[in-house]
């Protein structure tokens, strides 16, 4: 169980995440929506501990992970893997090596520096790629692959970490609709078949509705919505994407006029 308790994280005078409270059970698949800059990415980076919160605690199965350091911190990052919008693969290395880099946190240093991995791990990498229909690309350099292929390699790399949580930061924002479906389906499969807890940041409310049972909405660093997809009505979405947290001097009418930035396909999927 992931417990986020009054977590605040700021950079200079910008508060990325403000007093966030959140509890997520093992095996859940949770979507996070909100405007750009609403703190979605920061929240994931806080959980993986690329960022450290200034206030509050983050616990996983009772263990406090928000103040880990050194070796223990690295061990935690291995358990809470993260995939990125722009894949962040190493373009000059081949696909197999990229995937095997997922084991950097747990392999002895000397063989890894010379790109030596045991046969078993290489087999694991190939099989992981095969599950994502990518086994025929193992010797290609990732820079020559399409976005959808690169994101699947990133997923395979994440799986080689043998994680307990998969944090996906806008995994499909740079992909065309078909590749977006393939990648989202792969993430949903991982959640369903391996019981890995998934937190996924999404721009598309439509995708959030279809793949997640529970959705969290963020606005200006605060969690402003947390509930089942069925509660995600059009007005709730408008609230999440509202421009200002304070209604300022505008009347109720004016607030209603503020439309969500994303097209909402409620009618189709309601």
């Amino acid at each position, binding site marked *: 169980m992931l417990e986020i308790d009054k977590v605040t994280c700021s950079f200079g005078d910008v508060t990325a995440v403000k007093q966030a409270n959140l509890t997520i059970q093992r095996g859940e698949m949770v979507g996070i929506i909100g405007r750009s800059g609403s703190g979605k990415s920061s929240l994931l980076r806080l959980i993986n501990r690329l960022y450290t919160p200034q206030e509050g605690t983050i616990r996983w199965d009772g263990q406090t992970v928000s103040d880990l350091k050194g070796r223990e911190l690295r061990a935690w990052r291995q358990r809470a893997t993260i995939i990125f919008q722009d894949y962040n693969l190493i373009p000059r290395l081949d696909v*197999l090596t990229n995937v095997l880099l997922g084991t950097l946190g747990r392999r002895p240093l000397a063989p890894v520096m010379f790109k030596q991995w045991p*046969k*078993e791990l*290489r*087999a*694991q*990498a*190939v*099989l992981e*790629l*095969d599950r994502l229909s990518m*086994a*025929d690309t*193992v*010797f290609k350099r990732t820079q020559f692959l399409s976005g959808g292929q690169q994101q699947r390699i990133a997923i395979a790399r994440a799986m080689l970490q043998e994680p307990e949580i998969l944090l996906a930061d806008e995994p499909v924002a740079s992909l065309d609709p078909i590749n977006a479906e393939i990648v989202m389906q792969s993430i949903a499969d991982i959640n369903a078949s391996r019981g890995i807890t998934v937190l996924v940041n999404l721009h598309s409310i439509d995708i959030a509705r279809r793949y997640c049972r529970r959705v969290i909405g963020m606005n200006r660093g605060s969690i402003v919505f947390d509930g089942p997809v069925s509660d995600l009505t059009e007005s709730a979405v408008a609230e999440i994407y509202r421009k200002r947290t304070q209604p300022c001097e505008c009347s109720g009418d004016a607030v209603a006029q503020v439309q969500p930035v994303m097209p909402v396909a409620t009618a189709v999927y309601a």
Partner: protein
Amino acid sequence: MSDLALLQQAEALAPGAIFTPITNRVKFWLGLIAFAIVFTAAWIDLELTYSVLAGGFGKLGQILGTMVPPTSGGQLERLLWAIAQTLAIAVLGTVLAVVGALPLGLLAARNIVPNPMIHFIVRRIMDIFRGIPVLVWALILVAAVGLGPIPGILAIGFADIPRLAKLFGEALENADERQRDSLRATGSPDIGVLRFGTLPQALPVCLSQCLYYLEQNFRSAAIVGVVGAGGIGFELDERIRIFAFDEVAFIVLLYIVAVTVLDLGSQWLRTRLT
């Protein structure tokens, strides 16, 4: 499923991924052996023996001993002037190099000059002149122009023109084509694409290279001074010839300070400019 079966399954999916072909490993070892042979050959060719090395280090120790304590020999003012002269040689040489390299760099960039013949010829000529090191230019120019800072400036300028031009050309070529496309799509003439699509990308890189060359040329200016182009190198050479190693040590320390100040200054400038 047993481990072996898993390995075989993975190998079937991606042949060569699990059971690395023997040729790959042979290639690695052949490469290593080739390097070992070249290394040993170079060692033998230069007749490096331990006694030669040990003797050299012994002498070096004696010289280091005579360096303490360093002294200015009562000529601090003269030495500071010499360092200032060396700096002036470096600055003027670098300016000469930049001025000469700008047009050549433009001609050498494939995305600026579409005619492949022009940039092929420009690049080959630059390749030839890049083969002449600054010290050779200095020796030739001292013989031609006479002793003094002028041949030093010219030597640094001539040596760096082809080098900087190549770097400028590459900075221009590395400009992202998509940014240029977006301007071309507005109906901009070529000069507009160059001004706003290429220059903003290339200029910080070029400026940074100019500053780096200035730092390098401060060192080069000291070296060309030794062969008669004035400045601190000339003073250094004089004192080495009369074995005044305590004064040599003083000059070296003074020079290290000057180099550090220049490096810090150009580093500060670089973060401001880029």
